[in-house]
């Protein structure tokens, strides 16, 4: 069947009354789940999973998909307005989004992130439409050595995420890596730092760490700010959310860069929206002409990560549908929904189930358009949320964080972890240590180790495997270049500052 014939068929499927309803439902639920910090997409999809038994496979996937990409639309809301990330992938949006809200530009930030999310998602869907088989096969070129090289590049590139003292940032990355060590070793059956607890054998929970360091710590910090006059409701009336020309001009390239990075990381199983968002923020900060603006309300700092995480969301379907390989726990749930109906994802899916595949893709368009239209008027509602008195709002946030954390493992230990990291995060705030690098170290550290050790097993102990293999070698070369460039710019900056100090 020719390409446009496929699109037409897909549109037909996506626009059926039942599918539009479930798409809308999924998108709405997803946004809601994203806005509420702590309750994550995995929880929402797990809870609604039994519903898919009764729906047909296409409809089930449309709904689950809507929830999946809807969460990253909503996740930026809490990040911007409350400085508490809605999902771990939105943690970087806090860094520039919240300062924007404090400057009275919260409405603009919310509007622009919705646009960024739509842009990123569109790029992702276009890739899905045209390039699924090609991308699926190139993704197979990425073995353990390549993944390690990628993670290393990410760590080097993102070492500038924090502002302020570089030493503090690096210390936090190291601490994050240490927290990532907890759990059972993948290559030998040794438990590390588990203190005899079975529950810790699977490691520290990402939700617990992210919500603790960012969310609970923020709640504790804001005790001092009971009188929340930080956000003026006037700033979020519909006319006030129109961005300035400057904002729009600055946003184009970050959007494109973010969407590209996001699409790339989404297609690799095992990496996902969080890594994509972090790295695109880091890249933007690196190549900005005025990096000092970041952390103080730079629009690039929210456009790039939001485009990245939505693009990653969409392209995550590529390995899932075409290889049958889920890139993350949530994608595994999607696969489960397919398998219940006896559909095995794999290379033959596109040809044997064209209605499912194309219907799903077209529903992504429909869903993203719905979300775009839905989110703009909702901005006003979310800001009303801020008018809720502190003593009701923040305890509710805490409650949701605990519920969300508990629902990932149904184990009280996870909730204790939230409180532990909340205390750690509070301490970090008091002493001026940045939280984003810790999250980065925690996510990338274990991945790096796993891939490094496996690459070494596969190369039988030869370190040169990382340079010998073409893709890995290229990535290492880029990493070296980034490292050298970083050192050079720092030296240049220090010289400039020294000169300015002398002239002053």
């Amino acid at each position, binding site marked *: 069947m020719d390409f446009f014939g496929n699109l037409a068929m897909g549109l037909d499927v996506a626009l059926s009354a039942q599918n539009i309803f479930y798409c809308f439902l999924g998108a709405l639920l997803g946004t809601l789940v994203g806005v509420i910090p702590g309750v994550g997409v995995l929880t929402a999809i797990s809870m609604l999973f039994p519903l898919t038994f009764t729906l047909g496979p296409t409809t089930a996937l449309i709904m689950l998909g809507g929830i999946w990409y809807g969460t990253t639309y909503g996740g930026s809301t809490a990040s911007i307005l409350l400085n508490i990330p809605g999902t771990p992938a939105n943690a970087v949006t806090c860094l520039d989004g919240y300062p924007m809200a404090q400057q009275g530009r919260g409405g603009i930030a919310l509007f622009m992130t919705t646009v960024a999310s739509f842009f990123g998602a569109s790029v992702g869907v276009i890739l899905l439409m045209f390039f699924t088989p090609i991308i699926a096969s190139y993704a*197979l070129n990425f073995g353990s050595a390549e993944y390690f090289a990628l993670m290393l590049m990410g760590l080097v590139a993102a070492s500038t995420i924090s502002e302020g003292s570089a030493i503090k940032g690096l210390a936090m990355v190291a601490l994050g890596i240490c927290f990532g060590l907890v759990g059972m070793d993948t290559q030998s059956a040794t438990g590390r730092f588990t203190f*005899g607890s079975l529950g810790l*054998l699977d490691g520290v929970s990402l939700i617990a760490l992210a919500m603790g360091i960012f969310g609970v710590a923020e709640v504790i910090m804001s005790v001092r700010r009971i009188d929340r006059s930080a956000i003026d409701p006037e700033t979020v009336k519909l006319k006030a959310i129109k961005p300035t020309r400057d904002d729009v001009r600055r946003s184009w390239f970050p959007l494109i860069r973010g969407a590209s990075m996001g699409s790339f990381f989404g297609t690799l199983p095992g990496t996902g929206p969080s890594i994509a968002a972090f790295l695109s923020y880091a890249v933007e900060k690196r190549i900005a002409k005025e990096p000092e603006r970041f952390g103080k309300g730079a629009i690039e700092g929210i456009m790039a990560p939001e485009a990245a995480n939505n693009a990653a969301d969409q392209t995550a379907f590529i390995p899932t549908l075409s290889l049958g390989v889920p890139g993350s726990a949530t994608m*595994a749930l999607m696969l489960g929904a397919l398998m219940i109906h006896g559909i095995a994802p794999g290379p033959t899916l596109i040809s044997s189930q064209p209605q499912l595949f194309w219907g799903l893709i077209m529903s992504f368009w429909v869903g993203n358009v719905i979300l775009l239209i839905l989110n703009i008027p909702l901005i006003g509602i979310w800001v009303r949320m801020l008018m809720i008195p502190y003593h009701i709002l923040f305890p509710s946030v805490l409650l949701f964080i605990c519920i969300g954390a508990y629902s990932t493992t149904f*184990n009280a230990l996870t909730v204790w972890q939230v409180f532990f990291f909340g205390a750690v995060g509070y301490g970090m705030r008091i002493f001026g240590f940045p939280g984003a690098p810790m999250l980065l170290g925690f996510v990338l550290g274990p991945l790096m180790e796993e891939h490094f050790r496996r690459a070494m097993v596969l190369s039988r102990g030869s370190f040169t495997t990382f340079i010998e293999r073409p893709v890995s070698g290229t990535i290492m070369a880029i990493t070296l270049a980034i490292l050298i460039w970083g050192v050079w710019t720092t030296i240049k900056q220090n010289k400039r500052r020294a000169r300015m100090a002398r002239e002053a």
Partner: protein
Amino acid sequence: MKTLKGMLAGAAMALGLAGGALAQGQDYPNGTVTLVVPYSPSGNTDIFGRHLATALQERWGQPVVVENKPGGGSMVGTAYVSQQAPDAQTILLTTSAYATAPAVYKDLPFDPATDLKPIGIVGYTAYILVVNADTGITTMEQFIEKAKGSDMFAATAGLGTTTHFGMEKFLSDAGLDLEVVHYKGGGDAMVSILSKEADIYDTSVATAGDQIKAGKLNALAVMDDRRVTALPDVPTTAEVGLPDVQVRQWIGMFVPKDTPDELVEWLNSEVNEVVTSENFAKIVEPIDINIETSSIPEVKERLAREMEKWVRLAEERGISQPQ
């Protein structure tokens, strides 16, 4: 509708008969029954558990709910059930990880051989050995020939998983000295075979089926005592000279050790009847689970054999680390 009525009639009859067995004053189930699945939602075991819960709920007239308690390779949920009251209101629904994980996880807060009693084994998934089709290897003979003395790699879905132990048994029996590489989960392991990073992997028909159909993978043998209907041309391991290499990912149910034996026997017959009903087999077919029934002594003996086999294998191949 006919089968539903038939099922209900059968259930009513069974209940009537079973009522006799319970006449000694046990009133079970007494309230909500919890089926603990020690895995995250949406895995095959979880889906099976949910279908079973629905069927049991219909049969018993009491709510039967599934609770997920993932972690520690299923050991967290298992430990949880071992500490519950011995009234069978909490039942563990787990996989063959019950037998393999203890060989790897040494510091368990319970003893899998004695702290839980089996109700029965109700289903299994057959595993097959697959290689990348590009290698041109289509039979086990060819593979063993090429693999002897080579530096090929064998992939597993993780330390202590059924795929791991299956692979070790295969390598040991076939006299191959391949390096075993662990991945994090079946998805990653599949990618490794597709990308030719590793050379052989053992997995379920459901996971590999589509790739085999598309000609990307070749199945060399079924690690079971009978062929699978989905792949009728693939020989069993016995047919290629490796009769002991049989690994089934089975699904079994357990209760805490002090649960009264009569109750456990009754549960065994109840569950056996439910899973052998025509409707049920049809429901679980898409998730690649074959139904089986068992008696309690059978299961106890089989469990003991398996656990001993895996512990021995773990020690021989140096899988478990000294703690």
